[in-house]
């Protein structure tokens, strides 16, 4: 699996791994029923610890993207489009929450924050 990890990023490795597998599932690069590499295979390929891979797989399972059949492997679950859309939305919300927290910490008001958002949106359009 072509996954690119950034070891100097502050984002935990298991989270980077999760996000990339997730987007592969959402974009149907990984299809329903398809097997993910075994924990140790992916650990070897990416040169990270097996526990990190396992953590990512466990979280993906909690979120319903994959199912692990004990002793057999981890498979992509029936890709629920609604679930995928929600997951993406959640990620965006999280990013906004972080930015808003930062803005509040430096004392920006709601109006000022909204103004920043408007300016950025206008720049892009």
């Amino acid at each position, binding site marked *: 699996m072509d996954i690119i990890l950034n070891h100097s990023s502050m984002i935990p490795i298991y989270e980077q791994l999760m996000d990339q597998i997730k987007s592969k599932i959402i974009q149907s690069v990984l299809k329903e029923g398809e097997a993910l590499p075994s924990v*140790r295979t992916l650990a070897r390929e990416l040169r990270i610890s097996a526990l990190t891979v396992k953590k990512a797989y466990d979280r993906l399972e909690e979120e319903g993207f994959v199912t692990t059949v004990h002793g057999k492997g981890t498979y992509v679950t029936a890709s629920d489009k609604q679930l995928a859309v929600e997951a993406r939305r959640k990620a965006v919300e999280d990013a906004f929450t972080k930015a808003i927290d930062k803005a509040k910490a430096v004392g920006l008001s709601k109006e000022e924050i909204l103004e920043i958002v408007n300016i950025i949106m206008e720049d892009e359009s």
Partner: protein
Amino acid sequence: MISLKNVVKTYSDFQLNISMAIPKGRISGLVGKNGAGKSTTIKLILGLVKPDSGEASVFGTQSCKLTIKEKEQIGVCLADTGFSNQLNILDIESILVKMYPGFDKAYFQRKCEELKLPKDKIVKEFSTGMKAKLRVLVAMTHKAKLLIMDEPTAGLDVEARNEILDMLRNYLEEDEERTILISSHISSDLENLCDDIYLIHDGKIILHEDTDVILDQYGILKVNEAQYATLDQTYILKSHKEHYGYACFTNEKKYYQEKYPDIVIEKGGIDELILMMTGGYR
């Protein structure tokens, strides 16, 4: 797989007193400064040193009572191969064939070729890197369930180290139940391989943590005197006086990132962990 329960070993100038439990399928790293007790710990596990009190066991059997059958399931890589310097690869191969019923001759020969280990040269003439590769290969080739490696990458350049680590990764991939205990000075080797890390200092385990937790949640806060005075100390494990103020080691980097967005926070790796927790931080 490996269990040390309150194992105590006293030497005239040093006492080791540790407990650890390594389950099946786990890759554990043992780190610590020179003389911290890493090699003694490994010798206790292997039954090469008898504990004064407490219990060391492997596969549920007391270490000093391990049977030959059980020993065949352990692959060991110590500072020395244990083979005479005058032997060559072919000699060693014929010894290993007799020693281990599980010895995979074809694999051994293939690996020797891949690793460019000359068959007819005596070990004495091997380079440091070649000797190290041979030590690791000898430990792996009988398909042991458990590998115990004391500094397998010591003294090697980055390429040779990666080759050895890749050998270990391949070995692990072949059977998910395989377990490794590895000690090393080179923290990046352990960061990319081990599931968890034991930090040993003055004969005691002072920290045991999952590697990714260390990498993700541990960090160093760099603060000036004024910031330090008002700093919430809840998750500060250790602080050291610096010329600019203080370096504070935390296991909750995120908490401080959110609470003090202006403070400089660096990632904490295993090197930082050793330096901060054993008092040598500079």
